[in-house]
Structure formats: structure tokens, C-alpha cells
């Protein structure tokens, strides 16, 4: 295209020289021709721009991440002249159209159209637009092209997918499923650090003396073995290209882990932030659908932060009833370490899954006992990482 423009410019300059030295229909004709060629090219592009029609349709408006769904689009020329060069570009940030190349150029003859049927795959959970993003129109002399945004977008709602994990490397199911016996502090007694408000009758003086700090017995009564998962609920960016992948992976990880534990007969307690700290408990697999529905409709918000989440979570006695805690986070903060330590000191192992592409985000000086930090890249396959 640039070459054609350069050729036209050279010819135009030559025609300028021509009319400067000689008159007549030939020289002025050349000059007129090379002057109006770009004008007519632009007029043509503008006409095509406003007369061009595009129709696109997805088989379903509610999709699941990673699942293919039928997609078709139709480019139509309803006029009496040809559309010489039409190129269609698709949205690729969050979805991809299978089998179609955005560099393909089409010509539409009058009263004809091009229909393409293919499949659409969405990468992340959320509500966003898919399909044709931009249309590039080129004139018949290939001098100029213009790009305009497709105004008739297709909006879809994409649900998170369930990754079926057969094993989780860092999780010890035995620990998660059974009661804690000889964990070092005292036989059959589980204690934790004293918190203001605890009943002083539950202070375990022996452990307190040993640990040189007040320790109280954990709730006496029926033990509720299970896993607790604290989910990062913050939105870390304004740009969808940054926050959608992270949120998708967080949800995906949580859903996969919950399903894994439920499948193995381990109840799961989930904590996350909505307007305040929310907690949901799922006892078995039959309750998973309800949990999935909650996670599906969960909205990450930018006003929240992990500091609040983990502080509030740490103040709950219930989390100390779990046999194991899992944190699924994007960014580290001191409160996470503090809670992990507290849990660890209560003999509750903690696994922290950090959904982050930046290896430096993972704290290097983690010397919390019984706490593992695993970094999960945003685009990673959970089956490989977990």
C-alpha cells in the first residue's frame, strides 16, 4: 500500500512539473487524474464504510471458559458496486475464533456476502464482548485503508470452568481429613493463641507455660474436620486485560480445589470478602452446584484488600477448626503471614497458592512452619501446577 502511494506521489509530482512547463489536455489531464485518484479512493472507502453490513452470532450467550461454542458471521454487500478489500479482525484478548485468520482479505461483489461458520472459545470468566472487533476497508487501487470499530458487538457471559484434579501435590488429605493427634504441644489437646475475648476457662496453662504465651484450647465438642479456603476478593486493576485473567485463575483454582476436597469426602469452608466477610461451607459433592453458582456470580471489587480479608478471617474462631487452610491470593501482605503463622502455631498446615506471573511477588523469606507457598502463573494449566 505504501509502495502504491509512493508511486502515486511521484507521478503527481511529475505531473506538476509537466503542467509547469507545458499546457494542453495531456499534461493537465495527467495532473487532474493523479490528483483525483486519491480523492476518489477516499470517497470510495467512505461509501463502503457506511454501506457495509456485518452480522455475527454466537450459539449461546452464556459460555464456559475453554468450551467451544458455535460462532458465525456474515459480511454483506447490499450495493451495486464491489467492496474491493475487506479485512476482519477479531477480539483476541479474552476469546479466540477458531480457524479464522484476521489477515484474510475478502472481496464482496454486489448483492453477495461471505458467511463463515466456526467456533468461539473464551479464555476467562466474566462478561465481555467477543467476535469481530474491527473492519479494515481498502480501496480498489490499494492506496488507502481505514479501520473502523464494529459497533454491533456480541456480548457473552462466561462462566468459570471446573478443572477436575485427580491429585493435589501439596495437600495432605490425611491431615485434612483426620483429627490432629500428636502435634507436639499436648496429647489430644489442640490449642491456639489466646485472643482477647476468649473464655479464660479454656486457657491451657501447660502449653502456655511451654510456649511462654497464653494458649487456649480449641472449641471442645465435636471436631469438624475439613479444609478452609480463603479466596482473594480484590480487583487489582482497571484494565480488563489485567484483571480478568487473574480473577479467572483465582476462581478456577478455588473451584478445582473445592471440588477435589469434596470428592475426597472433605468438607470445605470458603471465606471471601463481599460487603463484609462471607463464609460458605460445603459438606459434600452434592452441595457443589450451589457453591459453583455462588462463585459464578461472585464479583471482585477494587475497594477490597487482602489486609482486611485476612484480618477479619483471622479473628474468626471457626477457621481454627479446619485441619488445613488454603489461601488463594494474588498479592502478598503482612496479614497473610501473620495468619499463616497463627494457624501454623495451632498445628494447622497452610498452603498458599499465589496467582501471579511475577516470581518476585512471592516472599522469599518465608520461614513459617508448615506453610508452603506455590506460585501459579496466570495462564498455567492447573493440573500441571497443582
Amino acid at each position: 500500500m505504501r509502495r502504491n502511494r509512493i508511486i502515486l506521489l511521484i507521478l503527481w509530482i511529475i505531473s506538476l512539473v509537466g503542467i509547469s512547463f507545458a499546457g494542453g489536455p495531456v499534461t493537465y489531464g495527467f495532473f487532474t487524474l493523479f490528483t483525483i485518484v486519491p480523492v476518489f479512493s477516499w470517497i470510495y472507502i467512505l461509501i463502503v464504510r457506511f454501506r457495509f453490513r456485518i452480522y455475527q452470532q454466537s450459539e449461546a450467550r452464556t459460555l464456559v471458559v475453554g468450551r467451544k461454542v458455535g460462532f458465525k458471521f456474515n459480511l454483506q454487500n447490499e450495493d451495486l458496486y464491489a467492496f474491493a478489500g475487506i479485512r476482519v479482525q477479531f477480539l483476541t484478548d479474552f476469546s479466540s475464533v477458531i480457524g479464522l485468520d484476521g489477515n484474510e482479505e475478502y472481496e464482496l461483489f454486489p448483492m453477495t456476502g461471505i458467511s463463515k461458520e466456526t467456533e468461539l472459545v473464551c479464555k476467562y470468566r466474566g462478561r465481555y464482548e467477543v467476535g469481530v472487533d474491527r473492519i479494515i476497508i481498502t480501496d480498489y487501487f490499494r492506496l488507502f485503508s481505514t479501520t473502523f470499530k464494529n459497533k454491533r458487538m456480541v456480548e457473552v457471559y462466561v462462566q468459570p470452568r471446573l478443572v477436575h484434579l485427580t491429585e493435589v501435590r501439596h495437600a495432605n488429605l490425611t491431615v485434612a481429613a483426620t483429627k490432629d493427634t500428636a502435634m507436639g504441644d499436648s496429647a489430644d489437646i489442640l490449642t491456639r493463641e489466646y485472643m482477647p475475648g476468649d473464655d479464660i476457662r479454656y486457657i491451657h496453662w501447660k502449653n502456655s507455660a511451654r510456649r511462654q504465651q497464653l494458649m487456649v484450647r480449641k472449641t471442645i465438642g465435636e471436631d469438624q474436620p475439613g479444609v478452609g479456603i480463603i479466596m482473594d476478593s480484590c480487583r487489582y486493576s482497571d484494565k480488563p486485560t489485567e484483571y480478568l485473567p487473574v480473577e479467572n485463575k483465582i476462581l478456577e483454582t478455588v473451584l478445582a480445589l473445592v471440588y477435589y476436597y469434596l470428592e475426597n469426602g472433605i468438607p470445605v469452608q470458603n471465606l471471601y470478602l463481599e460487603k463484609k466477610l462471607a463464609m460458605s461451607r460445603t459438606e459434600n459433592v452434592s452441595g457443589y452446584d450451589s457453591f459453583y453458582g455462588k462463585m459464578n456470580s461472585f464479583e471482585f471489587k477494587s475497594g477490597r484488600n487482602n489486609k482486611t480479608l485476612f484480618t477479619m478471617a483471622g479473628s474468626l474462631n471457626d477457621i481454627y477448626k479446619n485441619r488445613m487452610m488454603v489461601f488463594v491470593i494474588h498479592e502478598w501482605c503482612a496479614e497473610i503471614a501473620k495468619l499463616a503463622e497463627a494457624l501454623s502455631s495451632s498445628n494447622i498446615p497452610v498452603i498458599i497458592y499465589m496467582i501471579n506471573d511475577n516470581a518476585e511477588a512471592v516472599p522469599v523469606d518465608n520461614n513459617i512452619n508448615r506453610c508452603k507457598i506455590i506460585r501459579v502463573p496466570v495462564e498455567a494449566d492447573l493440573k500441571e501446577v497443582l
Partner: protein
Amino acid sequence: MFVTFVYDMAYLLPLLGGALLGLGRFFEIEDAGVWHFAVMLLAAVVCEIFRVVNSRGRLVMAVMGLLTAVSIAVLTEPGQRIELYNKCVPYINCVIMTLVCFVLMIFLVKFRKVRIILALLLTAGMITAAIMDIELHKLVVASAFFIIAAVMADIIQVRWKKSGYTDAGKHFVYILPFIFVMCIVVFAVPASEKAYDWGFVKRFASYLQEKYNEIAHGIVLSRSDDYFASVIGFSERGEVSGDSYKEPEEMIELVYENGFSTDVYLSGKHFDTFNGREWLVLNNSKIDDAMFDLIASRACANKYNTNVTDIMRTVKLQLEFKNQKTAYMFMPLKSLLTESQNKLKTLNQGGNRMFEKKMGYKTAYKLNYYKLNRNADNFIGFIRAEHELDTKTWDREAILYRNRDERLYTYEQYQQWKQMVFDWYGQKVELSSELRSYMDKIYEGAEDDFDKLVRIEALLKGFDYTNTPGELPARVNSPASFLDYFILHKREGFCSYYATAFVLLARAEGIPARYVQGYHVKSGNSNTTMVTSDMSHAWPEVYINDFGWLPFEPTPGYGRTVSWMTREEEQALKEKLKETAEEYIHDEYEPVDITAEEEEPEEEEEQETFDWRLIVFPAALGIVLIPLFKIIERLADRRRFRKKSQKDKIADICHRNMKLLGMSGYKMENGETLAEFGKRVMEKEETDLNNFIGEYELLSYSTVRDEEKSLCTVYEAYLELQLLFKKKHKFRYLLYKINNTSIRIRTIEE
């Protein structure tokens, strides 16, 4: 077919137009017109139909054409055949050219390389025509451009990688409107025979240049005037000594608004006091010296009892500063300011009219000044006469300039002005005894003061002019010592020397005089003159009692060339011319009126009659022959059908049935089976097609076992479908019957 037709015609039409206009003259087609092109177009369409349309109608057209030609040849009388042929030669040649273009077009549309070669040849041809100044019709040029643009679009399309179906011919046909309109614009835009003069570019460049000069001068000339003494050639300090180097710079633009330019002395500054080495302005008077001088001169002239225009004439002048930055207003003597840009404010100081502040580039003002008939005897007589302006005479003139303010230019103020003139410009100069003796000899026999002034002027004009007289000796430190040095010894110098000497000598005789610096502008051939710095000059002005200031020119090489005939002299000259002319008029020959045109003999008008037989006979023949031809065609078709095998007959009838269904509005869609198609038709029509469809399926996909039965079945469907078609479209059915041979078969019952 449409695409092919349009594509071919798109290449053919420009070829026809170009051939007709470009080569027509070689084929005896003088003054190619619309009819010639119409004939070519008709021939082209016929050729194209023959090429594209696959129909027996082509043969009919050919036969019709041939019959027409034969009829014309037969019906024309033998004596008129040659004349008819001569008349038809241009049109026959048009048809021949069309055929040639048609053949060329076939090669063009078939071979891309031929198109490219033609485009290159056309480009080269046009460039050659432009260089060699060969005249080409605009339509030829536009046609050539059309082909070039078409080839360009074609080449681009071929190299353009697109997905799916892309046909170069179809592409061209469907972008044709844009290319066609482009070529129409090329044709319609006027093309001058002359090369483009880039007037607007030049004007714009000139405007930018002016703006640049304005800015540059504003920056450069903001410094002291004295710094630019050598540049502008005019120094406000009135220095006399030294060498004068004047580099020409454009200073002021003069526009004479009522005719060609004339010699004019533009006064810049008047000096009153000479200290032996330089002139000074010590006079602080605020009197408007220019106005009083003007009124006095006009009043005297009006009183002189003669035609004022014999003494002074109005010249309208417009001045615009260029490389000038000064507070002094340059004006000729006897000027009246009429208009100044943005009403510039002026003041009077020391006998000079000045701007309130220094003005520079683009300062403009208009004035009227009274040019004196300086060299005329009449004027000299007027100057020598005694003038005494009384109050009445003064007021009669001054009232014209007072602008209803009675306080301006009163007689009393005039008297004050006169006193100022004598006080400052009449300062007595004492000559040395040697110079006094010398001058007395010069003045010997002088009748009056004016005579003395003339003699002083003549004396100084006899000296030599030089731009490099050298420095004044240190001993020259007074007017007298200067005069001694210059008159008695040096006797050479530039204008300042001569002006100074004149003024001092005049003052020595008690005649008020002043030294003036400005520009001496010589007359030119147009009404606009550029005053350059090398025109800077100094000259003396002498006060003539009651008349006012009168300039003199003592500098050698400079002269006053201003004079014109008085009215009496003009009248006398006219009389003399008339007398002279009358002597040469002859009365012997009668005047011949050469404007009358010769009358041409009237020609008898020939009446042309049209021979209708040329149309009626071929038409009648056509009416007879065409049906005959159709009858023969049908008989041949039926015979051909009869000769076919059973299977071929079945296939033929099946195809006819499908054609009938198509014409009735039912066409098979993509991917539709015969059964589905038949079902679709039967849903809408009452006709039972199951048997026919079944037989057709067997024919298409399997083998027909009972050909006789199959033939009957499909034939029955054929008859039913004809009825269906007739029911739906009666007129089209009629056309169908005319154009298609109906078949008959013997049924089993028969």
C-alpha cells in the same frame, strides 16, 4: 453474461472513441460527430452480442443486416450508387474501425500482457504528444486515461491476495463506476493551452516575502538612524563633509495615481543653520510651514490673473515606506496630505512636518502636490512679478483648508510664518572680500534677485560633480570659510556642497534660503516608482516674497525637466496643426466604403427526398423470411429429435421439463435432491410430478428399464408443465412457444 458484456464494452468504447477522434481523419472521416460514434457503437454492440449471447437470434440479426444492405444496393438507381457509396464511405469506415477495435478488444480482454503493453503505449504516446505539442482531443486523452486506469486496477487486483472467489473481470466491472466518473472529471476539467503560471503560489510567496521583510525591517531598523546613514543615503544630521557612498536600497514606493510618473523632489528635512561643517535645525517653531507655503503659492497663482494650471498642476501621489525608519514625512513641496494609514499623527517642528514617532516598513500616506511649471517662461514671469497677498486674497484661499476651523491659517499667522522664515532662513552671511568681488562680477547686470539666483545656479552647475570630494579642511569652520574653500578653491563635490553653497550665497544677498535633504526621483515609464537610497539628494529652496518656497538645482548633472505648455500655447499649437492638416486633404477621390460586403449569388436550394423503400422493402422481406426461417428451424429440430435414441429423447424431455419448471418459478436449490424439489413444487401446485421425478431420478442415478413407458411418463409431464407455465405466465408462454420447438411423440395408445 452481463459481466462479460460490460467488461468487453468498457475496453471497447474508449478504443472506439480514441479511434474515431484520433484516427478518423485517416479514414476520410472529417468532423467526426455523434452519428459516426452512434454507428460505431451500434456495430460494437452487434459484434458483442454475437460474441457473448448464445442464441439463434444472432443469425437473424446477421440476416437482417445483410438484407438491408442488399436492399439498398438493389433499390438504388445505378447512377446514384457511386454517390451513395461516397456518402456512406465514412460510415463504412466507422464500421471497419469498429471491427478492428473489436478484434483488438478481444486480445485485450484475453491477455493481460496486451493490456499492459497498450497502456504503456498510450502513456508513451501522450507524453510524446505533449512534448512535441501535438494537438489531442480531450476525449482521446480521457479515453486513454480510462484504459490506463483500468489496467492499473487490473494489475493491482492480480497481485492482491484475497480469500475466496475473486475474478479480475468481475472486479473491474463492479468498480467501473468510480473509474468512469474519474475519467469524466478528467474530461470535464478545463485544460489550458498554456503552462500553469502558479499565480497563487507566487502571490503567496510574495505575501510571505512581504511579511518577512516587515518583520526583518522591524527588527533591523529599530536601531539608531545614524547607523544607517550610509545604508539609506539620507542622514538626519545634515553632514556635508566626507565621501558619499550610497548603496541602493529600496526606501519608498511611489504610486502616481493620475498618470505616469514625473520628476519629483521629495523633501525629508529642512535645515536652517550652517556652522561651517554641518547643517543644524535650531528653529523650534511649531508653525506649519508646508501649509502656509502651499496656501501662499495658491493664493498668488490665483491672483496672478492667469490660468492656474499654467503655473501649477495637481499630482496625486501615494507613498509607502520600505527600508525606511524615520519620523520625517517625505513630501514634495506644495503638498497637501489627503489620507494616511490609520490616520497617522503628525506634528510640525522647525519647519519640518514629522510623524509623532519614527515610522517604518509599510507606513503609507497619500497626498496631492502642486507641480510647478518650473522651466516655462510664463512661470518665470509669474515668479518675477510682484506679489502682495492681502487679507482678502489670503482668506479666499485659506478657507479651502481650514476644515471649518476659523482659527487655522489666518492672515496673522501667515505674517508670523513669514517672519519666522526671514528670521531663520534669512540669516545674513558675510562673504570674504575676495569672494564678494568674485560674486559681484557674476551678478553684474542682474535685473533682480531672481536673476541673481539663476546666476548662482549657473555658476555652481559649471563646477564638477564628485562623490568623493574628501574631508573638509579643518580651517573650514564658518559659512564664509566654507564658501571661500568651495567656490574659490575646491570647485567640486556632491549635492550637499552645491546646495550649501547656493543657500549661503542666496543669504549673502539677503534672500531667505534653506538647505533641504530628501530624494530626487526621476520620471519613469509606469505609474509606480521605487525610490532607492542612491536617489538621496540635497538641494536649496529659496523664499520668494509672498509666493513661498521655490526650489533650485545647482548640482551639476541634475536638471529640472518640468515644464508643460500653457493653455494659450496648446491652443496655438492646435490651430497650427489644423491648418497644416487641411493643406493635405484631397477632394479628388470619392471615399470608398470598404465595409460593404459583396453579395453572393443566391443558390437554389435542393430539395432532398427520403426513399422509404429502403426501410419498407427490407422490413417486408424480414417479415416474410423470419417466420420461414423459424419454420425451417422447427422442422430441423423435430427431425433431430426423431433421430435420437429413446434414452436421449427421455433426457431431452426431462431437460425441457426442468426448464419449464424454472420458467414457472421453481429452481432446484443447492443441496436439494430431486425428490425434495418435486415435493416442494407439488406442495404449491396441483400438478402430479411424482412419476416424472421418479423417471428423472432413474435417468440421473440409475438406469431406465422400460424406456417406452418412461418416455410416455416424461412426455405427459411435459404437456402438463406447459399448461402450468401457460397458466402462470401467458405472455412468456407465447414467447416460449415462438422460440422453442415443441415436440410430439407417439404414445403407446397411438
